[in-house]
């Protein structure tokens, strides 16, 4: 059985909640390729993802959806192309508490622009519980400026329901109007 088209990619800046989000919906304990964080990333939080996270959702006996979290640092972006091959869609998590979330949005949508145009992007804004601004509407306007159409949800990566709804929105956007339920 082939694993093409059964991959969901999670990306976003360090600390945005990629590892946590994958853990929230994965059926297996997530696998993280451990590596020492650079000092810059360390300053932000103690344990950061420098390499890749992997999780999985099992569907029936032998069908699987693979969940990949991108390394959070720019120097790894040579991997992103490989990572997105055969992906269903992209979950971009933006940490609302960072200095310039608009810049983060721009950076990641540009880095994945080909994939986004071909498949589907969904944006989850995390840490809105602690940082109320910018708000979801600001993100919608920024996406307009980037000429990207994608659902933007406030999410808490620790809440399974939030992560699940983001992915549901991704799937329904890929097949709008289909009687897939």
């Amino acid at each position, binding site marked *: 059985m082939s694993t*093409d*088209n*059964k991959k969901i990619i999670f990306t976003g800046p360090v600390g945005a909640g990629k590892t946590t989000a994958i853990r929230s*919906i994965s059926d297996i304990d997530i696998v993280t390729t451990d590596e020492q964080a650079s000092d810059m990333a360390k300053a932000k939080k103690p344990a950061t993802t420098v390499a890749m996270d992997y999780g999985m*959702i099992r*569907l*029936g006996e032998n*069908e699987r*959806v693979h969940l990949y979290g991108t390394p959070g640092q720019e120097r790894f972006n040579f991997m992103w192309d490989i990572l997105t091959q055969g992906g269903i869609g992209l979950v971009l998590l933006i940490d609302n*508490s960072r200095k310039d979330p608009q810049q983060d949005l721009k950076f990641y949508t540009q880095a994945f622009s*080909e994939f986004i*145009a*071909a*498949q589907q992007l969904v944006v989850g804004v995390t840490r*809105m*519980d*602690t940082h*109320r*601004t910018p*708000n*979801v*509407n600001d993100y*919608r306007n920024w*996406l*307009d400026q980037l*000429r*990207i*159409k994608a*659902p*933007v*949800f*406030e*999410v*808490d990566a*620790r809440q399974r*329901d*939030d992560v*699940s*709804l*983001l*992915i*549901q*929105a991704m*799937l*329904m*956007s*890929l*097949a*709008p*109007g*289909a*009687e*897939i*339920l």
Partner: protein
Amino acid sequence: MIDKSNQNITLRVCLEDVGTHNKAVLDFFFAKLGQHTFSRVDTQEEANVLIIDYDYPPARHRYEEEYQQWNKPTIVLSISPVELEGVVWLSKPLTSRALLDAAGDVQSELVAGSSDKPESRKAPADAAEAQALHQRAKAEETAQREALLQRPEIKPAAAAVPNIPLVPALTESVDQSVEDKKPAEQSEQSEQSEQSEQSEQSEQSEQSTAAAAPPIAQVVLTDEELEARWQQLCGTQQDIDPKADLSEIQAEDGFFLSSLKDAVRLARQCQQGVLLNFPDTRIYVLPEIHRVFCAIPTHSPEFIDFIKSCSAADGGKMHILSTKEIHELNDMIAQQTSALYDLESFVWTSSLLSAEGKLSRALDPSKPVDLRHWPSLTRLERFPHVMPVAALWSADSLSAFDVARSLNIPQRYVFSFYNAASALGLIEQDSDKLIKKQSTSRTTEAPRGLFSRLLKRLIGG
């Protein structure tokens, strides 16, 4: 005595050691009254003043084990008195007055201790910056006081009504609505949000995630309750033939909803809190923190009654919050955090409850329109088919009738979505204005079988 001019040092604070309830209170305080005194930083290391929630065991522990040695001035929040050196104790519930006083005390302390504390080396620069901010704050405050705006009139009836004077009757109405609650609702209420510090404490020590859970009410309903709620939100109206008389499925926008929409518009325009006045309650629209304060729970029958009974005859005037009202509101938030709603979520629910599945007369169910953006469905009350409707409508220009037909779902859910998404400004009536996705064709056909199985898994849990 400390020279007043030295007290304007910006207090850099981090809220990682404060529980949900008080965080919501401080959020609003920092956005308004404290905006020129406090600035938020991400870690306690960067802070020059520590704020510690002493009733939250992990925070207290961290303070005693670690932070205390840093010798930074500390504001301790606690139900019972705390007497420690270098600590200003603030009793809960927090009041804006006490917060401002504590800020003053700590500023004095920072000035007095500037010779021996390393972090206060930055103080002179901070002081100059704060001085400038302070002056601007003064100017803004004066401007604000003068800006008691009258609500833009939308209906002739409203014009005849004199502006209701600002009396601080709001504490009474708040208390009233709390007292009126039946026991069943009370327990539900305390589940959604910690009403007493006691429950906050136990919840937080149970699970660290609880400490940062959103203060927005998240009610868990049984299947029957859910059905009943959907009826409240979307009504029971049967489908009609698109060619038939539309009067059956259409209704005027309720007075409450149109007032609310005006208040939100005004608040957004001027980025100031706006108070919407009704005899039963006051609604505060707070764009700085993207929230609405409403003392009547949106899940309660009282809220539905309130929405329905609102009329131009007895309210709907609005104005920008005065400083006095901001103080009052700060204290009300401290008493009732559960009354804080996400702004869009409040508008969404209000729109649904007032329309009950009937389409606003301003909207044409036969005209193709577009959904510019998805509503943030994680934080809004969801009803059947809301997600497929959003997905389809954001992909194509369609009429409400078409959406219902393509998805083969009852029209009332589509009308409900149309009303509520319009209230949030997410519908584009003019498709020329739309931002089209720069689409390259998808590399592969959507594997619908897989999607369907994955969706079932995600929805099923």
